[in-house]
């Protein structure tokens, strides 16, 4: 009985130290990864900010007048079509259908 208790406690001690050791290693790895992610996140934020600024509607409109001769056209919703698959065939339908009071 005594031996069994001793053995159990010994196993627990060994297991605890092993778990603790491996946890520490994982913690170190997590810390390293987090530290590596931090500057990348900051860099990504800055790049996104630049992208958002350069692709903002205001800038795009500015580029359009600066680099293109033709004006942008308004999309007429009645001319938008929908593509869908039915019985392995691609079909086209209107995006919206006119209501009675619009005809």
């Amino acid at each position, binding site marked *: 009985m005594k031996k069994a208790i001793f053995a159990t406690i010994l196993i627990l001690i060994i297991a605890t130290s092993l778990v603790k050791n491996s946890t520490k290693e994982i913690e170190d790895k997590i810390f390293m990864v987090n530290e590596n992610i931090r500057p990348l996140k900051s860099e990504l934020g800055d790049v996104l900010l630049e992208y958002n600024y350069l692709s903002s509607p205001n800038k795009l409109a500015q580029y359009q007048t600066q680099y293109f001769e033709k004006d942008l056209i308004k999309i007429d919703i009645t001319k*938008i079509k929908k593509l869908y698959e039915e019985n392995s065939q691609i079909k086209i339908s209107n995006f919206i259908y006119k209501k009675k009071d619009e005809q």
Partner: protein
Amino acid sequence: MNNKKNNVTLEEYENSFSYKKSKTNLNIEFNRIAFIFFIFLAISIIYSIQLFHLGSLKKDNLNKSLTVKKDYRADIIDRNGNYLVKTVSSIDIGINPIEVIDEKKLLINLQLIFPNKNYLNISNKLKKNKYFYLEKKISAENYEKIMSLGDKSIKSEEKLTRIYPQKNLFSHIIGQIDDDNRGISGLEKSLNEKLKKIKEPLQLTVDTDLQYLIREELIKFQTIFKSKGSAVILMNVNNGEILSMVSYPDFDLNKRETISDVNFINRNTKGVYELGSVFKTFTIAAGLEEGLIKTDTEFLNLEKKLKCGKNIISEYDNEIPSNLTVEQILIRSGNIGSVRIGQKLEIDKLKLFLEKIGILNKIDFDIEEVGEPIPFRWGKCKLATVSFGHGITTTPLQLAKGYAIITNGGFQVKPSLIKKTLENHQNQKRIIKKGVSEQINRILRKIVTTKEGTAGFANIEGYEVGGKTGTAEKVIIGGYTRKAKVNTFASIFPTSNPKYVMIVLLDEPKTSEDYIYKYKNRSGSYKGTPFNTAGWTSVEVAGKIIERIGPILATKYLEN
């Protein structure tokens, strides 16, 4: 002779001891092994506790150990993840004149890096022997150049700063911060503490593209109708998410100017206006809600003029027939008919209805710049004027909320700028009877599609626009003035299953002699603005806005 012998005696002691407890016959024997075992046991228990403690720690607590930079505020993004505000670190370059060794050499070097600076001024500052800033928010390129000079007197200071990539676009929503990093207006003020605490960006409900297109139209029509200011709110009628909220004139947040001119207020939330006939929809909705009227209920022999106290209530259009149904009253915007419906309702019912849809009291909103409708005493004359939208004030935001409730099936809605989890009708409270919305929506559609309706210019093909116009004279000391008007158009679309409510308000618009109107319900066009009414101003603006934002709403937000 004392020959004493020094004898050393070595005795072997038992390295064990025993403890006996007579009563229980418990016999514990300690020895070295047991002692070492207890030491290990104690250590293992300590480590186990530590392990358990670390395992039970929350992620937030661990993150607290990371230092938060002073002046940090969370970024703000729109509903599509585009930055509206971002905190970035910037470097300011200062010079400490006491540490300057060779002033002449320093000035020459600086001139090579910053050729456009006033070096006479800098030289004077150097002579004063006081620390000063040479360049704030220096570029990375110039920072490298200046630091490579290796001059001890040049100091660099890293600071956090707020960048607003959309400039003016969200000025009233986001608001400003002061030099002490405190929010002084907009969300920066109302969410001051939250923005300092949270790590992740704060997501709003607004859409940058929609906001830009709407603002562009407002600027265009500002030059046409020369109004003092204008405002537009676009809101989802089902969940109260505000997709766009533009108030013009606005300001560039990056400039950090002190705004004291009241013309720059957020007209959507802070502006309290008499909005006129847009209130007639509420009077009729209240009548339908109470079951006192139906859309085909006839009102016969309606007078052309009514006298109430000192005031005379008359029709805007003298051609309006004397016999009208409820539907025709709203389509033709009849004042006297609306008064009759109001009188049928009586004060309590109309007041309760307006309170229920959030028109009369100050609204609880995400930003603090919110106006309070002017309180008034109800009476017979007040009931009459309120029925057609006069003598009662509210904000455009509250008007949008009211229209959302009466058109979405009667469900409570809370306008919001901050993105939350998707809400649907299942957890929304119904506050208006089923069926009222369908009847109202049908009439609102007819106001746009029929010849008698006042909002034909908003009949944009494909979007089923419905709405009600409101032209109100502004109050000056001693009464109303015909010279200054507030023209409003409250629209919903698509009327068969409303998704959006849009309020367009023009503050003191003027008529235009050159603007060419293109008729929507018939062929042809008309040059010049014949009447300074909402039908000829706000409706035209709303139509043009819907034409531009419609394709985005119809395709991008198809599932919402």
